């Protein structure tokens, strides 16, 4: 009984310690609009670490890890193998509801921010982010050096959709920080979640969340919703457009 009470007290105290700092963040733009000349963008995340009376006086240096996650989707990674002299897809793994965009930013190498144990639990670093696979009917993430998992991360990184940068977060003052969020031109449309995790001396202190969205507006949106909601009319319009273009060309280039 006494032990349980002690444990509860300890949890309460630790909980209080975690609430000793407050993170206040803001993204430079909460609504990125995709217009005809859109070709990628860079957002800026600003924030500050607010201390209060309960903050231990000796705690001065903070570490931050910012995780940006795009809309989730199912993806398949296939592996080619040589069979009968030709290279064909033989094996595949399905990744379930994984982020289509994933970025991890820190102010110094993730290994030096916290212990491997906490890094795994808090999903710090591309190796520790949870990527659920369907392995023969089972749902699980596998070891970080799994061939399909590392190929998946490598291919996404090549396209600029997955990234890890341990020097992207800069502290302007000991408590004021900023980081850029580069969005390549082919980023998926949708809602992006941003998680900011605070560490000090290897201990996880707390986190806060914010979000932004990438939306199509005007003509882009008109075309996209038209294609999705009125397939028949849209198809008819494209077919008529094809005929008109062909007809116009034959008039323009007529040589009589």
């Amino acid at each position, binding site marked *: 009984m006494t032990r349980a009470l002690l444990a509860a007290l300890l949890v309460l105290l630790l909980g209080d310690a975690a609430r000793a700092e407050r993170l206040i963040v803001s993204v430079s733009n909460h609504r990125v609009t995709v217009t005809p000349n859109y070709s990628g963008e860079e957002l800026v995340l600003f924030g500050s670490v607010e201390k209060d009376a309960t903050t231990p006086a000796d705690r001065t240096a903070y570490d931050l890890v910012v995780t940006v996650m795009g809309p989730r989707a*199912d993806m398949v*990674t*296939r592996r080619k193998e040589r069979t009968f002299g030709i290279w064909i897809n033989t094996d595949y793994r399905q990744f379930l509801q994984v982020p289509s965009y994933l970025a991890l930013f820190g102010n110094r190498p993730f290994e030096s921010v916290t212990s491997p144990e906490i890094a795994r639990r808090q999903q710090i670093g591309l190796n520790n982010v949870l990527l659920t696979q369907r392995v023969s009917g089972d749902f699980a993430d596998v070891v970080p050096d799994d061939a399909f998992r590392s190929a998946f991360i490598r291919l996404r990184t090549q396209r600029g959709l997955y990234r890890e940068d341990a020097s992207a977060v800069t502290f302007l003052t000991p408590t004021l920080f900023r980081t850029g969020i580069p969005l390549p031109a082919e980023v998926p449309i949708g809602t992006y979640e941003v998680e900011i995790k605070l560490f000090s001396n290897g201990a996880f202190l707390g986190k806060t969340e914010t979000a932004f969205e990438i939306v199509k507006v005007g003509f882009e949106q008109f075309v996209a919703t038209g294609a999705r909601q009125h397939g028949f009319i849209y198809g008819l319009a494209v077919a008529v457009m094809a005929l008109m273009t062909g007809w116009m060309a034959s008039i323009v280039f007529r040589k009589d």
Partner: protein
Amino acid sequence: MQLYLPIADLPVNVFLVLAMGAAVGFVSGMFGIGGGFLMTPLLIFIGITPAVAVASVASHIAASSFSGALAYWRRRAIDPALASVLLCGGVAGTALGVWTFTQLRALGQLDLMIALSYVVLLSTVGSLMFSEGVRALMRTRRGAAPPRRTHNWIHGLPLKMRFKRSKIYLSVIPVVIVGIVIGFIGAIMGIGGGFILVPVMIYLLRVPTSTVIGTSMVLTLVTMLFATMLHAITNHLVDAVLALILMVGGVTGAQFGARAGQKIRGEQLRLLLGLLILSVGVRFAVELVIRPEDLFTIRELGVNG
């Protein structure tokens, strides 16, 4: 100049796409083929997903074959009777092909099937046309008379019909069968099928070269319009902006191509087309045989949210 494509969800260089459309349009106007087997790989190469590429190319082919068909129509190089008989088979074949496509997709090896059929079909048709073209060229160089047009077993079939414009008297059975086969292959491989139709009409049905190209264009036009509608209704993947850029480039190219095609002699034209088809076939074969740079590929199965 960069422009964002609303369905493909990525920005492209307008002039690059315009140039690609024009180049493929030129080839398609010259040989009377759709050019889908050239355009689709090009679009995938610049980063557009295969599904969007295939769906949008269909409308581009429709536009350039329509402008080409109009040009041939004015020169009275289209046989309306022959075209409508072909279409009867073509529509049936396309429907059958779409059904088979769905079945194959469920089995999971559709990509391989497509690549293999590309290799087999393109290299066979390409080398046949190429060797025939070389032989014809040698004959004319030697000054020998072309071999007399002999009648084969096809011309002994019943249900004969007179195709006035082409000046042939032919059974409708082989024509309908050719239409079905072309429609079927086209639906499975995502191509118009003009490059198979043209040689088949020349060598098997003995349709004179003067009406072959224009007539095959009519078949391509109708099947591709059908395919555009089908893609728009079922997959919602037709990118109208991409299609429009390709169309404008394509129809311009097709006009010049059609004119160039009229100037080149028949056998040289066949030789060139054979060479082109063969090289695309070889390229696909090489891709299958050589170890790919990356053994892994990712495919997205649709974004939620």
